[in-house]
C-alpha cells in the first residue's frame, strides 16, 4: 500500500475540481506527511505504538502501595477520632475514604495478572528524574535570589542536557526565555515576582 496509491484513489475528483490545491501540490504535501491510515489501521497503529505494559511485579507492588496508602489513611483517621454516625468526628469521613482506598487496592491485587494499562519504564524514562531535580532548586532559590538566575539555569539545563541542543541555542535560548518572562510578568503584568534587576 503505497501512500500515493491510496491517496489518489477516491479523492482524485474532489481534489481536482474543488477550489483547493492542485493534484501535484497535494502529492507534494503527501510526501511530507506520513501515510494517512484508515481508522482501523490507525487504531491498530496506535495500539502497536503504545508503550509496553509493565509486568506482574509492578502491578502487585502498585496494588500493595495502594493498600498501604489506604491503611495509613485508616490509621491516621482513627487517631483523629471517628465519632459516631449520628455525630461524625473529624476522622469519620477520612476513615470511610481510606477504607475504600484499601479495599480498591485489594481489588487491584486480585486483578494484577489481567492488568495491562501500565507503561513500562524504559531507558528513555531516565530523563525524568534529573528533570525533576532541576525544579527543586528553583523552588528554594526564587525568594532568595529572584527568579532570573534560577530560570536561566533551569532553561539551560533543559535545553543543553535534557534536550541535547547545541551550546549556542542553549545559551541564547535560556537568556531569551528569561528576558521574555521578565518582560511579561514583571514589566507588563506587574505581578509581585521576586527579581534581581
Amino acid at each position, binding site marked *: 500500500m503505497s501512500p500515493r496509491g491510496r*491517496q489518489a484513489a477516491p*479523492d482524485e475528483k474532489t481534489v481536482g475540481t*474543488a*477550489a*483547493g*490545491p492542485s493534484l501535484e501540490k497535494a502529492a*507534494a*504535501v*503527501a510526501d*511530507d*506527511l*506520513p*501515510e*494517512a491510515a*484508515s*481508522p482501523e489501521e*490507525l*487504531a*491498530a497503529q*496506535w495500539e502497536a505504538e*503504545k*508503550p509496553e505494559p*509493565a509486568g506482574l511485579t509492578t502491578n502487585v507492588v502498585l496494588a500493595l502501595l495502594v493498600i498501604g496508602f489506604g491503611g495509613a489513611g485508616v490509621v491516621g483517621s482513627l487517631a483523629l477520632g471517628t465519632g459516631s*454516625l*449520628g455525630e*461524625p*468526628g*473529624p*476522622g469519620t469521613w*477520612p476513615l470511610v475514604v481510606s477504607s*475504600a482506598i484499601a479495599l*480498591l487496592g485489594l481489588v*487491584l491485587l486480585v486483578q494484577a495478572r*489481567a*492488568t*495491562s*494499562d*501500565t*507503561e513500562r*519504564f*524504559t531507558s*528513555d*524514562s531516565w530523563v*525524568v528524574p534529573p528533570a525533576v531535580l532541576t*525544579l*527543586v532548586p528553583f*523552588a*528554594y532559590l*526564587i525568594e532568595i535570589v529572584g*527568579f532570573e538566575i534560577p*530560570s536561566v539555569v533551569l*532553561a539551560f539545563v*533543559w535545553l543543553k542536557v*535534557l*534536550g541535547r541542543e547545541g551550546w549556542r541555542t542553549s545559551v541564547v535560548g535560556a537568556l531569551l*526565555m528569561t528576558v521574555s518572562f521578565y518582560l511579561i*510578568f514583571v514589566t507588563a503584568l506587574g*505581578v*509581585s*515576582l521576586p527579581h534581581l534587576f
Partner: protein
Amino acid sequence: MDIAPVIDGFGVVLQPENLLYCLIGVVVGMLVGVLPGLGPAATIAILLPLTYAVEPVTAIIMLAGIFYGAQYGGTITSVLLRLPGEASSVVTVFDGYALARQGKAGTALGIAAIGSFVGGTVSIIALTLVAPFIASFALDFGPPEYTMLALLGILLVAAVGNGSRTKAFVAAAIGLLLATVGRDGFTGAERFTFESLSMADGLDFVPIAMGIFGLAEILHSLENRGKLGKPPAKVSNPWPSRKDLKQSSGAIGRGSVIGFVLGILPGGGAVLSSLAAYGLEKKRSKTPERFGKGAIEGVAAPESANNAAATSSFIPLLTLGIPANATIAVIFGALLIQGITPGPGLVEDHPELFWGVVNSMYIGNILLLMMSIPLVGLFVKILTIRASIMAPITVLITLIGVYTVNNNSFDIVLVIVFGVLGYLMKKAGFEPGPLVLAFVLGSLLESNARRSLILFDGDVAGFATRPISGTLLAVLVVVLVLPLLGFVLRRSLAGRSGPAAPGPGGGVTGETPSDSPSDTPTDTPSDTDAPEGRTKESSR
C-alpha cells in the same frame, strides 16, 4: 425569565478592556493548547495564574477565552499531527489528517473552527434558556441531595473514563482524601497536616491541578520525545469554499444538537457526542466510503458536537455546582478562587456573575472564530518548534505562574510533588481526571454528608427515603451495578469458548458509552476504542 440581567451582562462583557482580555485568553489558550502533550485541562491549569492578576469579571471572561482556545488547540494537533488533544477529538483525526495529506489542512481547520463556533453558540443559547429553570429546581436541594449529586458526579466521571475502572476509583478516593487535609470545618481539628503550617489551611487547588495535569504531562512527554509526527510545512488557505460549507452545513447542525444533548451527561458527553455525530454523518451520507479518506463532514460533525458538548457541560456546573468533567473541574476551581461558588443560588443571588459567565462564553466563541482562521499559519509555525525548546518554556510558565498566585514558594514545591505524582500515575495507568475532580468536590461532599448524617441522626437509610436523593441513589447503584452485570454476563459467555476472558479494564469501559447511541454504526465505536487510550491527555 427576566431579560434585564442578561442584557446587563452583555454590557459588562463588551467593555473594551474585557474584550481585550478575552482575546488574550483565546490566543494564549490556542498557543499553549497546540503544544503536543497539553490537552484542554492541562492548558487551562497552566494558564490559571494569568487570570489572577485581573478582577473577577475580567478573569472569568479571560477564562472563557482560554477554554475555547484550548479546545481548538487540540483540534489543530488532531488535523496536523494526527495527535488528538483529548478523547473527544479522536474522530476528527480520521478525516482531518486525511485532508491534511491532500494539502487541505487549512480547509479542515477552517471548517472545524466554523463548526466549533456554531456548535458552541447553539449550546450557549440553549444553556441560556435551560439553566435558570434547572437552577430553580435545584434550589430546594438539601445536604442529602448534594451528597448524592456530588457522589454521582465523581462516580460517573470515574466510570466512563478510559482504562481501568478500579484505578479511576482509587484516583477519585485519593482526591477525596487529599481534600480533607487541613483544618476540619466542623470541629477545628487539624487533619493530615503533619504539623506543617503551610498545610494547615488545606491544599490549594491550583498547584494540584497545575502539577497533576500540567507538569506531569510535560515530564511524560519528555520521555516520549521524537515519536511525534512532523506537521506539513505550509497550510493552505483556511477559508473553506462555498462548496465545503454547503457540504458540511447539515453535519454542523446535526452535530451541534447531538453535542448539546449528550454534553449534559457527566463525564463522557463530549467523547460520546463526537462519536455519535461522526457515525450519524457516515450513515446518512450517500457516499459513506469517503469517510476516513478526507470527507469534510467527518471533521465538521465531531468538531461541532464536541464543542457543543463542552459548552453544555457547563450546565451541571452553573446550575448544580457539580463539574461534569476534569476540564470543567479546573474551571470550577478557578471560579471558586475568584469568589464565585457555582450552584443553584448563583442565578438568583448573583445574576451579574451568572450572566457574566454565560455571556463571556458567547464572546469567547466569537473571538475564537475570528482569531483561529487568520492565525492558523502561526500555529503551524509553533508546531514546527522542537519539543526540546518548548519544554523549558512551559515548565518555566508553570513554575513562575504558580508562584504568582499566592507569592508562596511552597506552592512551587506542591506543583513539583503533584507533577511527579501525576507522572507516576500516568505510567501506572491511573487517570488524573477523577483525582482532580474528586479533590474539587471533596469538601462539598464531606460537609454535606456530615450534615445529612446529623440531620438523619445517624440513620443512613435517610438518603433513600427522601424522593430526590433516593432517585439519585438509585441512579448511583445502577451506574455501579450495570457494568458489573455486563462483566459477569460476558464472562459466563466467554467461559464456554475458553478461559481467555477480557481484562476488566479495557473491556468494561468501552461498552458503557458505545451501547447507547443506537444510530451509531457498529464499526465506529470499535474503531475508536483503542485510540482513545492514546490521546495526549485524558481530560475527564
